[in-house]
């Protein structure tokens, strides 16, 4: 391939640019609808398939736990494998973790690798929260299983939805601010020709630069924002992981349960990392069809729309979960 490019010269470079552009546009056509449908549960068949897969994995997991307790060889490996599968299927159904990661990936011009890392980290943090909750609850405070699961579902679940809703509102607010600033700058230019924009561009002869640049709008993600994202997802431990942890603690095979909870987390991460990839593909596809200065205008709109979607969905979920 390389030789072909050098031999054909500029023409091949152009062709490659066209191919890349086409791939990005495909992101808009393929990834975006898929993402929206998936995140909102529109794919009834996938949700059903995921539930059936989870059912099988759940039964196999129970059998693996029984064999482990009976001291059968290789049972731990089966347990870990089934916990991983459980995580994959459980996450393949719609859920707020994907809504948040996907929505964030669309809203902010965050790069692919950091977003995927964020997805992985939040899944593992979710497993950690489950472990801490169960061991603090049962081992330290002597809670029953019902109380532990109750705490997760009645307190932590609404709290997690609220946190995610706030992140959505924050994104929407940023988008709104960007939009207003963009309009103010454009209005200014229209009225007064060569006047300064809001003082941050000091080149009188360059009015077309008065709108915020792509780089300015797509400000680098702060560590605090990343932390909020992880916390929003991790604050709600998976009930399946809680069941597994309590069960194995009661049976005296707690270490296997902790390992299983992290295997579930990795399974969940497999899906959320894929969603992160899809969301970046969809967003770049959307932006690739716009010319340079329009991208700067589109970014705040995307941010506003994705932020509002996250916020509205989370509030709905919160109302449903209280």
């Amino acid at each position, binding site marked *: 391939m390389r030789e072909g490019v050098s031999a054909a010269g500029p023409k091949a470079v152009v062709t490659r640019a066209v191919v890349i552009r086409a791939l990005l546009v495909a992101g808009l056509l393929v990834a975006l609808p898929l993402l929206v449908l998936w995140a*909102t549960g529109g794919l009834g068949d996938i949700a059903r398939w995921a539930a059936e897969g989870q*059912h099988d994995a759940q039964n196999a997991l129970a059998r693996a736990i029984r064999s482990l307790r009976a001291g059968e060889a290789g049972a731990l490996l089966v347990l870990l494998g089934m916990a991983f599968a459980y995580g994959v299927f459980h996450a393949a159904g719609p859920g707020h973790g994907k809504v948040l990661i996907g929505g964030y990936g669309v809203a902010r011009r965050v790069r692919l690798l950091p977003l995927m890392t964020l997805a992985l980290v939040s899944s593992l943090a979710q497993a950690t929260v489950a472990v801490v909750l169960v061991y603090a609850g049962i081992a330290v405070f002597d809670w029953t299983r019902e109380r532990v699961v109750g705490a997760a579902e009645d307190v932590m679940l609404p709290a997690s939805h609220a946190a995610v809703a706030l992140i959505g509102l924050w994104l929407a607010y940023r988008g709104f601010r960007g939009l207003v600033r963009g309009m103010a700058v454009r209005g200014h230019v229209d009225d007064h020709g060569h006047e300064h924009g809001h003082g941050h561009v000091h080149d009188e002869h360059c009015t077309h630069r008065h709108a915020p640049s792509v780089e300015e709008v797509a400000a680098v993600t702060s560590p605090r924002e990343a932390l909020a994202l992880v916390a929003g997802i991790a604050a709600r431990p998976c009930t399946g992981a809680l*069941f597994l942890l309590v069960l194995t603690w009661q049976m005296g095979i707690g270490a296997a349960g902790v390992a299983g909870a992290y295997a579930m987390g990795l399974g969940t991460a497999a899906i959320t990392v894929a969603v992160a990839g899809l969301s970046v593909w969809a967003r770049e596809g959307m932006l690739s069809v716009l010319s340079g200065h329009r991208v700067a205008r589109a970014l705040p709109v995307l941010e506003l729309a994705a932020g509002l979607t996250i916020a509205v969905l989370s509030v*709905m979920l919160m109302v449903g979960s209280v």
Partner: protein
Amino acid sequence: MTLIRQTLAALALSATSAAAHPHIFIDTGLEVIFDATGRAEAVRVVWVYDDFYSLVMLQDRGLDPDGDAKLTPEEEARLSGFDMDWDTDFAGDLYLLDKGVGPVALGRPHDWSARVEQGRIVSIHVRDIVTPFAVTDAPLVLQVYDPTYYVAYSILGTPLLSGPGAAGCSVQVFEPDLSAAQEELQAMLQEYTADQSVEQDFPAVGANFAEEARMTCAKG
């Protein structure tokens, strides 16, 4: 604006319906019991819990400590009724629709028992039909579903029809028609207006995604 509102309504519906993951899976056996005059008077419900939740339940209660998945009669007696302490507003995840429409009032559960078969908890209870009635060729629809989708139900085999008046009746289980259910959801959203509560309408939609049994009886 209509588009935005409809999109939001669709998001709201799908969020409430599908965002909850099932954590418990129950295969449900149903038996419609008839009285001597041919009226449907009660439904016996058999819940077969999944392996995992069964294990959680048994372990929680300290039952089956040797792990052989066999309970002694004393242990069975202790397990019995573990899932029968219902809140007053819990509908038992069983819905009967007379002629496919009208909801049929059901009484509280009674005559319950529980046992373990192949590691799975089998829990049985009976619900009386408050006003027994004769079923005609317009089907009596039986649905099992959890509106919150915390429990995923499926119907086990074909429901049984028992009692002296069951002759001439037949029953069949239908898979949910997902595309039809989606269409109905769309149609409902078209009619959705701002003063209607999407939440309130939700259970009817959820039922469209559940398996159901339809029972008819020949006239005469």
